[in-house]
């Protein structure tokens, strides 16, 4: 019904506004308080618009190599020039905003993937890592920290990509995909992937990979602190490069999941029913698994294993908007973004900085219990 999409759009617009507000306020919070108006001014100053096109006529100066491309150069201009202090501008643009935006996108990705996994498995305890993706990422990341040379042997063909210092993220991402795909293969037989088998295979593989991580931890020596920090989930040290990657991947993958929202609704009724209603169940399941695994892998690769966002946010939102994924998926994704930004703001503004995973768990669980006690819960 278009009515459903109207509701989805209204909720999403509201939550998007909330997310923008939360990001703005969060950028002002910290050891140096920056007024929200200054934050907005700094962001506006950073806006560039293409102001014109120049045809390069001569040789590029400075004795650089001649470029082979067309001598076309786009000129950019800053339309806004509010006066703000250099310090404030630097704090907001270089320190806080990358981290906050990373939190927002990671939160969106984890909440979207968690929503899909809970619906897919018809299991309230499912989270984005249920098919072993997070554990795989952990093994990848921890191995990189403990023994980068060993990982390099595996990542050989990807070596050019490592130049930018993204080895940790890449190792985690590859670990995530290998684990997810492995679980899928283990659980599939004769072209069918029963959900129950997938869930159990995921639990088994998670346990096994947990053992691998524990073993690596024992032998991590000096780097144990870094490993623990990564495993708890953190967003410190975010770079604009990471933000750029997630800003492209997370919205694209979330929209792809949204295209399967209707199938996911029908799958909730059971696979036999879904097939009888015209859904190619196995194909839809494959697509949902693949997309949400890549989404989770992306989020975990840049932020470590941040628990509870993908578990609690979808539940909380479902209690409010109901189980229809056409509404639930976008709203819970956007709510996840706001939730993680707030949690990370708390994590970094205490006396000592905490890994954000501790904050999400400590704050999310009581809130969730409150919802459980005050709302009637049927299933999922």
């Amino acid at each position, binding site marked *: 019904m278009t009515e459903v999409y109207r509701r989805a759009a209204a909720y999403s617009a509201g939550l998007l506004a909330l997310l923008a507000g939360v990001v703005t306020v969060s950028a002002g919070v910290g050891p140096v308080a920056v007024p929200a108006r200054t934050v907005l001014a700094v962001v506006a100053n950073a806006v560039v618009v293409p102001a014109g096109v120049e045809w390069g006529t001569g040789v590029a100066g400075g004795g650089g190599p001649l470029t082979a491309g067309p001598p076309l150069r786009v000129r950019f201009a800053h339309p806004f020039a509010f006066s703000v202090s250099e310090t404030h501008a630097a704090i907001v643009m270089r320190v806080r905003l990358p981290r906050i935006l990373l939190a927002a996108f990671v939160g969106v990705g984890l909440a979207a993937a968690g929503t899909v996994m809970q619906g897919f498995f018809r299991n309230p305890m499912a989270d984005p890592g249920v098919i072993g993706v997070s554990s795989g990422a952990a093994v990848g990341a921890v191995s990189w920290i403990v023994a980068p040379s060993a990982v390099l042997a595996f990542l050989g063909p990807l070596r050019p990509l490592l130049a930018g210092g993204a080895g940790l993220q890449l190792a985690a991402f590859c670990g995530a995909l290998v684990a997810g795909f492995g679980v899928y293969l283990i659980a599939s037989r004769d072209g069918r992937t029963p959900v129950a088998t997938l869930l159990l295979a995921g639990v088994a593989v998670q346990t096994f990979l947990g053992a691998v991580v524990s073993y690596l931890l024992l032998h991590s020596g000096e780097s144990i602190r870094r490993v623990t920090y990564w495993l708890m989930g953190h967003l410190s040290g975010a770079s604009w490069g990471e933000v750029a990657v997630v800003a492209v991947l997370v919205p694209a993958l979330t929209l792809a999941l949204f295209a399967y929202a209707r*199938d996911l*609704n029908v799958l909730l009724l059971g696979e036999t029913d879904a*097939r009888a209603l015209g859904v190619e169940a196995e194909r839809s399941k494959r697509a949902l698994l693949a997309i949400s695994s890549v989404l989770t892998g992306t989020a975990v690769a840049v932020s470590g294993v941040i628990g509870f966002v993908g578990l609690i946010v979808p539940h909380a939102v479902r209690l409010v908007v109901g189980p229809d994924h056409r509404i639930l998926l976008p709203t819970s994704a956007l709510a996840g973004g706001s939730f993680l930004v707030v949690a990370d703001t708390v994590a970094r503004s205490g006396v000592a900085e905490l890994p954000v995973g501790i904050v999400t768990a400590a704050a999310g669980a009581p809130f969730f219990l409150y919802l459980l006690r005050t709302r009637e819960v049927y299933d999922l």
Partner: protein
Amino acid sequence: MSRDRDGSAAADGGDEDGDAAADDRDGSPLIAVRDLVVDRGGERVLNGVSLTVGRGELVGLVGPNGAGKTTLVAAVNGTLAPDDGTVELDGRDRAGLSQREVARLVATVPQETNTAFEFPVETVVEMGRTAYVSRFGTTTAADRAAVERAMERADVAAFADRPVTTLSGGERQRVLFARALAAETPALLLDEPTANLDINHQPGRSTSCAASSTTGRPRWRPSTTSTSPRACATGWCSSPAAGCAPPGRRGRCWPPTRSTPPSASRRPSRTTPRWGRRW
């Protein structure tokens, strides 16, 4: 689906019996099952079943528990791949049709479904239109009209906004019936459709089936096992002539050549748990 074929082969709990004057309309029967064999959990549940159902026919299937009625429904609507034999829908081999195409020919009211989710009734009925909505599209006015009609006919419009979880078993079953009607398919399969219905709605259900049949000939007749207008309800009678032929029509039984209920020998001891294979 094309509206001009709104005639339905409605089947209670399965669906069979061949015959049909209506077949001649465009040559091929709506549902044609040939030598169907299905094994489940190591047991042969269906063994060489053949039957045809023409347009506008309303056919009932009765049989003891475990006789394979539901299995036959699953084989026809494409949720189960047969081990041998063919199913043709509207003259085309089902194996060559996508699940979406099958769902535009055959709608099913399942015996039971997972309705533990708080979907409003209207959303559940709308799921009957799944096969008509494209992945990136949304429901059209035609879809919404079909949903409205289905809810009226199944008598669920009064609680269209209530979550299905709050309905009684019988109300829920009417919702599933509405969901199947919403697909507006030429064929409608109903698996144990009256199990939870109160006496007031049993005739109602059958009337709706009859109304969706172009021939409109079938008359409802009370029966403890089936609301089929033809109490012969096919199949298991040993003598096809006895009570199987509705007035003025040629009757045929499924399986046509058998003289004893095929289920009798088919369901021996339950040594293997039936769900054993699925995990």
